[in-house]
């Protein structure tokens, strides 16, 4: 067998994945925290004040990376859900379900910070703008996946049902975006453009990109630590989990 394929098969085995993820996790957390610190420093101290929005524009450094992540995580979840449904790989089920709460968290942050940003800029906490509405629907999709996963008793069946829902959602998302766009132009014309074609200052751009990369690492770290716990729960009858449980017995 080709070594890459062999490695892939090994990765699918829970104990191997558990150990590998455990070795990667400290690095991922360190990279994520360093990236966040650098990005926040750049966003709060280095980036110059926006000539139109003043300092309120600094919300962009948390808002936009979270908006990107909310979609990225959904695609990740749906791709893993697809793999789980077609090839029935246990690891993919676990990864897809571990990604859902993280994606919901990013979507929530995106909505909350967006609304906080909207108040001083547009004078309102919420507008039925196409992107905002799509993001809200995305949050509902995440909550639906999480809710379905926790409502079904059997863990693997629950993961497969929720993965299926995630796949339906991925078909639904572009339709929602298109329909909301159409609806929006019908009702209120063009909305406020945050950036438009204007060029963004390099001193604003690098913190933004740093935050985007840092949130990717944060997602990876959170995903692996969630997947590790889920595997422990899923395989709690197996010997390797028993050994871990006994090794970590608190000294009384």
């Amino acid at each position: 067998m080709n070594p890459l394929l062999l490695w892939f098969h090994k990765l699918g085995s829970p104990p191997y994945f558990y150990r590998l993820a455990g070795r990667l996790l400290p690095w991922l957390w360190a990279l994520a925290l360093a990236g966040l610190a650098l990005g926040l420093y750049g966003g709060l101290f280095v980036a110059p004040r926006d000539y139109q929005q003043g300092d309120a524009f600094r919300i962009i450094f948390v808002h936009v990376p979270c908006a990107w992540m909310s979609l990225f995580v959904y695609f990740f979840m749906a791709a893993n859900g697809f793999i789980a449904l077609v090839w029935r790989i246990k690891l993919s089920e676990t990864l897809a379900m571990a990604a859902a709460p993280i994606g919901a968290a990013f979507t929530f942050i995106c909505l909350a910070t967006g609304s906080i940003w909207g108040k001083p800029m547009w004078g309102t906490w919420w507008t039925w703008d196409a992107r905002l509405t799509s993001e809200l629907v995305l949050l509902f999709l995440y909550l639906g996946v999480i809710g379905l996963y926790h409502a079904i008793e059997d863990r693997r069946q629950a993961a497969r049902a929720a993965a299926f829902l995630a796949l339906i959602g991925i078909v639904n998302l572009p339709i929602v975006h298109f329909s909301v766009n159409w609806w929006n132009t019908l009702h209120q014309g063009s909305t406020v453009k945050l950036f438009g074609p204007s060029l963004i200052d390099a001193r604003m751009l690098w913190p933004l990109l740093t935050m985007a990369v840092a949130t990717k690492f944060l997602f990876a770290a959170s995903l692996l630590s969630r997947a590790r716990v889920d595997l422990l729960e899923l395989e709690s009858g197996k010997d390797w989990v028993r050994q871990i449980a006994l090794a970590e017995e608190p000294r009384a």
Partner: protein
Amino acid sequence: MSYGTATSACRAVFVRDFGLVWRRRGDALNPVLFAIMVVALFPFALGPEPKALQQISAGAVLVALLLAGLLSLDALFRSDLEDGSLEQLVLSPHPLALLLACKIAVHWLTTALPLLLVAPLLGEMLYLPRPVLGTLMAALALSTPLLSLIGAVCVALTVGMRRSGMLLALLVLPLYVPVLIFAAGACNAAQQGLPTLAPLLWLGAALALALVLAPLACAAALRISLN
């Protein structure tokens, strides 16, 4: 051993489901009653001025029918699951998607069609402008089967659960948004005297797509949740 043709299986599903609905024909009127009550609440909330009610009439009727449909959705597979016939359906040698399409069709005919018939009355309660009524009916005729088809997929996912009401609403809602947008969009365009063909055509296209794909997705979802 012979199983009979797929056509005869479909006919059997139709006959059985219609028979079951007929035996509990009192329940069949529940969604209609619910929709009437929802619409009747709007004048109390907004005041009785015809002008204010007219503005929201088409949208209110659409939302009332959508909620009534959501209420009846839960019952789509419930009794079949309880008496075990759903598993027989899954195990049958005929294509599951086809049989499910028959079940969904019966469900639409017995729950959504009465709602559709009562829609002009609901519109009248909210002073729906006469020229909009045609568009509203066309939008409803295209969107209610779409809602039934999409809803059936979500019901299939939640079929094994005892208390699925709120979860079902959460699953269905994001999928209903585009349908509602186009149906209401057509009515609003009619109210402003604009052409309504485009949103109706979008609904028609979505319905054609859902007619083919939703039964297949429903069958796949049912196989997952019955395992």
